[in-house]
């Protein structure tokens, strides 16, 4: 515990000793010399910007916001926050159509799911990709995640909601955009696992996109608005004693830490109510509050990839330990590094080569190991790894759902 009572900043920038360890671990600085690196862009630049905002440098946009600089910092300086806050405060660049489109996941998702077959087919077409590439500057190498024809919320209301009241314990589920619009199966897997553990799953009063893409694309007012709506729902859930569980590491990280640190929205009263699915589940089992049984015939070699925001939260241990509970799983933990996509960053044409260069060592390692699946808590890492390697990627909750002996687990938790 460092005594920060003398600090004038909220992000500890006075604690920076210029040791350069952050730059050592910056995935961008390693491949893109145009980026000044976290020390220069963060605490060093901040000293200048405090003197005169004109010292702001637009090259700060190359920061992925992976926060690996903060994980590496021996003195608890929130370097990533300093850089992102500077972008919010000083950047004069207005978000364009591309930024609007990439960042408005709720709007795009709602439109796309209603016309999923058409949208999926056209986003895969060469001429469409060419237009996205040349006009929108969205790189043609990228494949947009497929949109589902039925939203998770719709499925939930039709097929799951009525059953949830019968369980002894209850949680709220922050499904996020990816589960709702692209991959409802992961949401269904979550409901299945939680139900077997004796927990009913409920949707929030109102849920908006966590706002991570809005923040990184400079749409700050909208991000604040959505954050307020989400926190209002979280507060209502917490008041009923129900934790709010997310499956996506980035959504959870954004609501817990980016809301107060970047958007200036105080969430201290409910921050601990916002939890990650694997952490919640592992803790239940580790503490003996729930029991879990697995199918004896489930045998796979899995490789766990630590997403950047998992690394920052320090919670990879929960996903790793949860996967290790499954007797038939051989688990390889991949060296923790950025895969390069960083949400919407890697979709932008100017970032594509950087994005692939950052991930290259990870992709090589995965091809070397050739696991049955790569497992990660982050959906955009999934897109990147599936595009860049021959291996499919699953969420740990889907692995648990597949490996689970549903009937035995249900019975075990009824008895206790």
């Amino acid at each position, binding site marked *: 515990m460092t005594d920060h009572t003398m600090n004038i900043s909220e992000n500890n920038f006075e604690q920076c000793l210029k040791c350069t360890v952050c730059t050592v671990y910056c995935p961008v600085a390693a491949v893109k010399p145009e980026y000044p690196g976290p020390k220069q862009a963060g605490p060093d630049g901040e000293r200048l910007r405090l003197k005169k905002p004109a010292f702001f440098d637009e090259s700060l946009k190359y920061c992925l916001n992976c926060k690996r600089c903060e994980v*590496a910092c*021996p003195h608890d300086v929130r370097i990533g926050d300093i850089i992102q806050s500077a972008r919010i405060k000083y950047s004069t660049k207005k978000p364009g159509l591309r930024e609007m489109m990439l960042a408005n996941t709720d709007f795009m998702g709602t439109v796309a799911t209603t016309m999923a077959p058409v949208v999926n087919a056209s986003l895969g077409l060469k001429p469409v990709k060419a237009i996205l590439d040349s006009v929108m500057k969205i790189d043609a190498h990228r494949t947009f995640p497929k949109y589902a024809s039925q939203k998770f919320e719709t499925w939930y209301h039709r097929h799951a909601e009525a059953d949830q009241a019968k369980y002894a314990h209850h949680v709220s589920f922050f499904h996020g955009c990816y589960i709702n619009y692209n991959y409802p199966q992961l949401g269904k897997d979550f409901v299945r696992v939680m139900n077997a553990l004796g927990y009913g799953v409920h949707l929030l009063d109102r849920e908006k996109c966590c706002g991570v893409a809005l923040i990184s694309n400079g749409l700050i007012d909208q991000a604040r608005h959505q954050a307020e709506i989400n926190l209002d729902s979280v507060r209502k859930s917490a008041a009923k004693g129900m934790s709010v569980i997310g499956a996506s590491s980035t959504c959870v990280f954004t609501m817990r830490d980016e809301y107060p640190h970047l958007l200036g929205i105080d969430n201290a009263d409910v921050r601990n109510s916002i939890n990650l699915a694997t952490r919640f589940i592992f803790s239940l089992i580790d503490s003996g509050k729930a029991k879990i049984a697995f199918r004896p015939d489930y045998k796979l070699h899995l490789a766990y990839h630590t997403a950047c925001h998992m*690394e920052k939260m320090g919670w990879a241990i929960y996903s790793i330990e949860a996967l290790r509970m499954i007797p038939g799983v051989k688990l390889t933990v991949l060296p923790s590094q950025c895969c390069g996509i960083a949400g919407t960053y890697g979709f932008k044409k100017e970032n594509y080569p950087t994005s692939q260069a950052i991930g290259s060592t990870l992709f090589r390692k995965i091809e070397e190991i050739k696991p049955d699946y790569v497992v990660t808590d982050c959906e955009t890492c999934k897109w990147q790894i599936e595009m860049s390697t021959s291996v499919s990627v699953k969420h740990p909750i889907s692995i648990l759902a597949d490996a689970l002996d549903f009937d035995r687990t249900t019975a075990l938790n009824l008895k206790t």
Partner: protein
Amino acid sequence: MRFDTIIIGGGLSGLTCGIALAERGKRCAIVSTGQSALHFCSGSFDFLGYVNGFDVETPATTLAKVIPADHPYARIGTDRAIAIARTVPEFFGRMGVKVNGSIERNHYRITPLGIMKPTWLSLDDFNVIAEKSKLPWKKVSIQNIAGFLDFHTAFVADNFECIGTLCTVSAFNTPEFERLRTNPSEMRSTNIARLFEGNDDLIRRCADVINRNAGDAEAVVLPAVFGLLDSHAVEVLKAAVRLPICFIPVLPPSVPGIRTQLTMRRRFEELGGTYLLGDSVTAAHLEDGKVLSLSTTNLGNDALAADNFVLATGSFFSHGIEAHPDKVVEPLFGADVNAATDRDDWYCHDVFGEQPYMNFGVATDGDFSATIGGKAISNLYVAGAVLSKFNPIKEASGAGVSIVTAMHVADIITKKNE
């Protein structure tokens, strides 16, 4: 989550202790606030380099005669400390880190400015220099990468010429370095090292130029910026350069040091250890003179429980101990410290003199347990730079105390459980 032992601090001492325990089948976790001082490592490990300003030649035979009774080595027992030190090269060898040197006789390492300092073990990258005032070459070719500012060739040449070695100085360039120089202020050792990772062609192209520039020199002197993730790049370079290479450590970050940190962490994790990077202990929960569990920033309350705990949090730099306006404290447990009470006694006015604060650190009882209010905490052990009563700079003893006390504490914990 429950472990056999939880180690606070993920640097040289914490990792050594964790690996030593994990090698004996113990389930360990390391909690580390950010990266460690190995990132600033010279590439050599000192055990005891100086006594009263004079170079120590044979630490194994000298130690018992010169070390004060309250020094960590003396408190381990000088024979025991030497016996542990003898096992260290093999300990590193088991994780694939080759070190040269011996506790029987110190050798010399070359500093970034080209000065000779006595040391115990050096990573295989570096030369083991036998004599303080003589290099094994009459003429060397000092070569830098064009635009790299953290390797000071003029100082090195000056100091080498003082001890009778002629020097030529040159620089070499490639389009890859040219591109790095887009950002001259961040053209750092590690960014250069990354260019060489998996790019043997670039290394061989550099070797061609190095060979040409070397002329009639007997050795080539290069900055130690090769081999970040493993030592492959060093091996490729050594094979491609026609003369012996003398690597010189550069200003931080240290490429060989980071490689050592990464290798030690990998070894610890391969042995089943859990390494929690970027997390900090926020509270310790004690009962009846024992630590029960720790809370951390990331994991929350009562997250980490264990039978034994090791405090390997480093000195002032790593906040293992902190100087407040009126006192020096150990911030996690409020453990007793050995430190002068009067602030005026912390410093001496000669900046290069023997600074009393360098000897400040955590007080321990006979078996290296921490004490609080004079009472031993029976399952909290202390290792490395956070310990008191030694001066890593004046003695050149930092790495030795870190490694040897960590291994000693691992032995105590193992024996206690037997």
